[in-house]
């Protein structure tokens, strides 16, 4: 199946990004396709390039880069990102910044859309 993912919570404060990450990894191991991960609301903070947790703690920036390297599109909403200072200078390098139309495209292209 094709899954589209919407992330609305930021990193660390809530569990949403961790749950989503574990869901994505499980889905990919099972042979499902992730059509994309769209970051909206405070979810855009997950893609800040300045996340620097203590070395013995999970690094959400690195976990997301790992799944991006496996071919998953990570899309930061441009409007929600600008509002919070997540712009080209401050977003992770390999990341995609795009409009809300991409979120609708995920709804269209995916068999299931799930929000975390």
């Amino acid at each position: 199946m094709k899954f589209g993912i919407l992330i609305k919570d930021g990193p660390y404060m809530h569990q949403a990004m961790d749950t989503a990450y574990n869901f994505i990894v499980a889905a990919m191991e099972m042979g499902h396709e992730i059509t994309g991960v769209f970051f909206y609301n405070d979810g855009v903070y997950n893609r800040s390039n300045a996340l620097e947790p203590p070395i013995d703690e999970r690094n959400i920036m690195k976990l997301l880069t790992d799944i991006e390297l496996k071919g998953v599109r990570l899309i930061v909403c441009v409007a929600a990102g600008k509002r919070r200072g997540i712009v080209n200078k401050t977003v992770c390098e390999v990341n995609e910044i795009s409009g809300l139309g991409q979120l609708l495209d995920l709804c269209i292209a995916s068999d299931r859309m799930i929000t975390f």
Partner: protein
Amino acid sequence: MLHIVKRSPYESSALNDSLKYIKEKDILLLIEDGVYSAKKGGKFENLLKGVLQNNEVFCLIADVKARGIEGSEIIENVKLIDYKGFVDKVCEQNPLMWA
């Protein structure tokens, strides 16, 4: 529909709100702090038992274990699933997150 609840029922109306929309064949999935709903002896035990009469209820095992809840403390007939089971449930039913 797959109703997913991630908030504790003691601090959020999400569980109650989701149950107003639960229909025959729908599934309730408790994750994150939502798993506290399924603890035996808690205030929501009877509510969940009522749900179990008509619907399947699942709990994400990673969240149950993390919170120090033993399998034996989970209300009977609530099933524990891992992340792959979570994925399977989303395949079965269209998910709506009740945050």
